C-alpha cells in the first residue's frame, strides 16, 4: 500500500485517462519509476520492482514478465487491446493492466511530468 505522498497507479490511471482492464483492485500501489520496451527479454533483465511498464505488446507473456520483475503494472499504449487470455492471467496474478490510446512517447512524457522517475 502506498504512503500518502507517493503516486499510486490509480492516480496515474486517472491523470492519464487510462482504463484499467485487469486487476483493477490492485491499483493502490506506489509507482516507483517506469520503463518503456516492447522486448520482453529487456524487461525481464531491466525491470525493477514498482515500475510501470509502457508497451504495445499484449501477449499473455507480459503478465509473467511483469510478475517476475515485480512491476506495479503494465500500461498498454497506442490503443492496443490485450485479449481475454492476457486479462484473465493478469487478474489471476494481480498485475494491473491499463490501456490508453496515447502512444508510448506521450505516456512516458506525461508520467515524467507527474514526477515519476
Amino acid at each position: 500500500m502506498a504512503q500518502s505522498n507517493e503516486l499510486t497507479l490509480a492516480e496515474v490511471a486517472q491523470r492519464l485517462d487510462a482504463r484499467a482492464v485487469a486487476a483493477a483492485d490492485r491499483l493502490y500501489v506506489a509507482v516507483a519509476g517506469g520503463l518503456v520496451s516492447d522486448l520482453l527479454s529487456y524487461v525481464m533483465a531491466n525491470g525493477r520492482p514498482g515500475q510501470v511498464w509502457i508497451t504495445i505488446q499484449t501477449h499473455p507473456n507480459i503478465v509473467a514478465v511483469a510478475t517476475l520483475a515485480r512491476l506495479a503494472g503494465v500500461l498498454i499504449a497506442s490503443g492496443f487491446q490485450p485479449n481475454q487470455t492476457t486479462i484473465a492471467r493478469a487478474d489471476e496474478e494481480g498485475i494491473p493492466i491499463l490501456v490508453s490510446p496515447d502512444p508510448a512517447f506521450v505516456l512516458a512524457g506525461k508520467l515524467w511530468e507527474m514526477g515519476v522517475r
Partner: protein
Amino acid sequence: MAVCVAADLHVHSALSPCAGDDMRPPAVLLTAERRGVGIIGVVDHNSAGNAGAFLEAARAFAVRVFVGLEVESAEGVHILALFDNAEAAADMDAAVAAHLPGWRNQPDVLGNQILVDAFGNEIGCDDRLLLTATSLTVEQVAAMTRERGGMPIPAHIDRELAGLLPVLGFVPPGVSVEVLEVSRHMSVREARARWPELEELPLIVSSDAHCLDDIGTAVTWVSAPLAAAEIPALEWGRCLAANLLGAGG
C-alpha cells in the same frame, strides 16, 4: 549411402525484398546440391508466392524441398510455416494475406519482390508490403500451419530482431511447435547454455540465407531414412523432433 543428410530449412527466395534478386530456383537448388545440402526449406516474408516454382524445379536436383512462408506475428516474432506441397502453402499464403496491413512495398528502400517460374524467369512482382507484422498471434500462426499439415518453426529464436525469446521473453506455453530454430550466429549448445529452458526442446540451426553464398552455412543433420520419408510436413516435423532428441540434440 549417407547416414545423415544436411538440412537447411530456412532459405529465402527473390520474393523476399531483403534477399538477393538471384535467389531463384535453379541457382538456389544448384548451390544447395553442390554444397551437399540434401534438404532445404524455401520461405519468404509473409508469402509463399514462389513455392510452386521451387517444388517444380526441385525434380531436376538431388535436393528435397519444403516450401512456405516466414510469417511475422502481431508481436513481431518470425515463424516458419513449412509445407510439403504447393497447395497447402498457397492456402496458408491466402490466409496470411488477409492479415497483412494492405500497404505497398517500396522497392527502392526495402528491395524487390520478384515472382519467378521454375526456370528462374521473372513472371511478376508482388506490390504488397510483405516485410511487416501481420495481425496474427504466434499461437494463431502455429495453429494455422498445423491445420494445413505444415510444420511451424519459430525462426532464429535467439535474435533480438524478431526472435521468439528476446521478443516474448520465453517460449509461450500455448504455442504448439515440434522444433525451434537457432540462428547461424549461435550453436545449439550455446543457445541451451544461455536459455536453460531450451534444454529439453529439439533445436535446429539454419542459415536464413538471403544470398546464394549463405546457403548451407548452418545446417541440421537429419537421419537418412527421415530425409527420404514421404510423409506430410507436420508429421515430418514430429519425426525430426524425435530424431534430434534421440541424437542428443
